[in-house]
């Protein structure tokens, strides 16, 4: 009972004794996949020269490529029922998440909530979620182009010129409108987003997405304000969902995973609209 697992006949997620995702069973095959929240400390400077540019609304510019962890052992609570199984994770006072698998689904949902990001230490922070797997992606990953075709990205590379990146992290970030994915000859892992985010794969098998940022300096590209939005006297709270899909890769001659991603993407971005009506009618009158 020291390990927690949730899932159904298609997909099963196992959490380690510290409360982090440890592996995903998809269609009978086990993949080592972990997920955690991390943050980059924002660069600050006087904006006089490029080297002194601050991270701001226009540019993501971490002070170093190193990431900071937010928790070593999130508190978890598990709820099980006939329709859904959920793990509620609390990482700290400002990051929490619900991981769920519905009985009939082939994907897992990660509903994250981040904020208000603390800045009492006068350090801007850019929060990411990172999924790390044993997939040997060799620096290649794919991001979508406004929800349509997928564009191949190779780490530290540009197709039309020789690039030498001085900012290894930011230089490998790409826009993600709905999907980021990677694969090797056996396995494919994709994350669908519910909004446009920045994303990357900075090491083999890993996908990361930036989910929230709070910065204390302007980057001098025009807005002339720091990206430090507040409401009710505190920093903003962001809540959203990622959908994780794992399965056999395209190279395995199986189109199933990508078609599943496509259907899920459509069904999540154009989900059924909900209309609520108070009524005094009895059921039979309403019927």
């Amino acid at each position, binding site marked *: 009972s020291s390990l927690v697992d949730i899932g159904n006949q298609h997909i099963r997620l196992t959490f380690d004794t510290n409360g982090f995702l440890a592996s995903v069973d998809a269609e009978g095959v086990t993949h080592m996949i972990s997920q955690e929240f991390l943050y980059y400390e924002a660069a600050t400077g006087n904006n006089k020269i490029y080297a002194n540019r601050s991270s701001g609304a226009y540019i993501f510019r971490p002070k170093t490529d190193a990431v900071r962890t937010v928790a070593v052992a999130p508190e978890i609570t598990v709820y099980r029922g006939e329709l859904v199984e959920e793990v509620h994770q609390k990482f700290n006072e400002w990051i929490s998440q619900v991981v769920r698998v519905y009985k009939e689904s082939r994907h897992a949902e990660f509903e994250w909530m981040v904020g208000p990001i603390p800045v009492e230490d006068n350090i801007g922070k850019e929060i990411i979620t990172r999924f790390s797997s044993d997939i040997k992606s060799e620096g290649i990953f794919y991001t979508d182009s406004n929800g349509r075709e997928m564009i191949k990205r190779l780490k530290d590379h540009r197709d039309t010129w020789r690039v030498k990146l001085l900012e290894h992290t930011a230089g490998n970030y790409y826009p993600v409108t709905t999907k980021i994915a990677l694969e090797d000859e056996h396995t494919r892992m994709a994350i669908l987003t519910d909004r446009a985010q920045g994303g990357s794969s900075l090491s083999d098998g890993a996908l990361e997405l930036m989910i929230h940022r709070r910065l204390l300096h302007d980057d001098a590209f025009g807005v002339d304000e720091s990206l430090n*939005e507040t409401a009710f006297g505190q920093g903003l709270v962001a809540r959203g969902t990622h959908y994780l899909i794992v399965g056999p890769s395209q190279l395995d001659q199986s189109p199933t995973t990508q078609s599943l991603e496509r259907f899920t993407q459509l069904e999540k971005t154009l989900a059924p*609209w909900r209309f609520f009506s108070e009524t005094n009618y009895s059921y039979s009158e309403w019927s």
Partner: protein
Amino acid sequence: LPHLNFMRETMGVMQHHDAVTGTEKQKVAYDYARHLSVGMRTCEANSRSVLNILTEGESPRDKRYGKPRPVKFEFKTCSLLNISMCDVSEQSEQFTLTLYNPLGHSVNDYVRVPVADVNYEVKDYKDVVLDIQYVPVPEAVQLLKFRKSLAKYELIFYVRDIPAFGYKSFYIKKTDGHHMKPQPDPDNM
């Protein structure tokens, strides 16, 4: 048409590069939010009107009485469902939920409805009582300072085959029976 045009114009404004990337000034961000909020409300009026026309259609009984059935529903959208808030579902003894599928193929959907207690019954239009499950609204969400809500739970049910460009409605009612509040799995504490 003016309702739709307001949203059309707003979507035009939203294509400015500052709106796409989030590089607008804070006061402009507030104005974008205001425009989108008003645009959603104006379009809500259109969908309410259309759905009332669709659901009012003359039934045989109406023809017998020679007049259309005077049923009007509110068809409210709850824009704060992402933090498990909805006035109608939290405060009503009985309410209906209509799901409209904007896709060109039928879909299944797990519906989550914020509720204050765990004593509800959900019926579809065929008088079938659906299987339901409750899960607690996560503690961190309940503690959000700006969230003013009675909802401590989410009522979940599964809807099959919402037709393409079509809808299904459900009747949700509080019952007298007592249900078990969702308890954490004791083996995984």
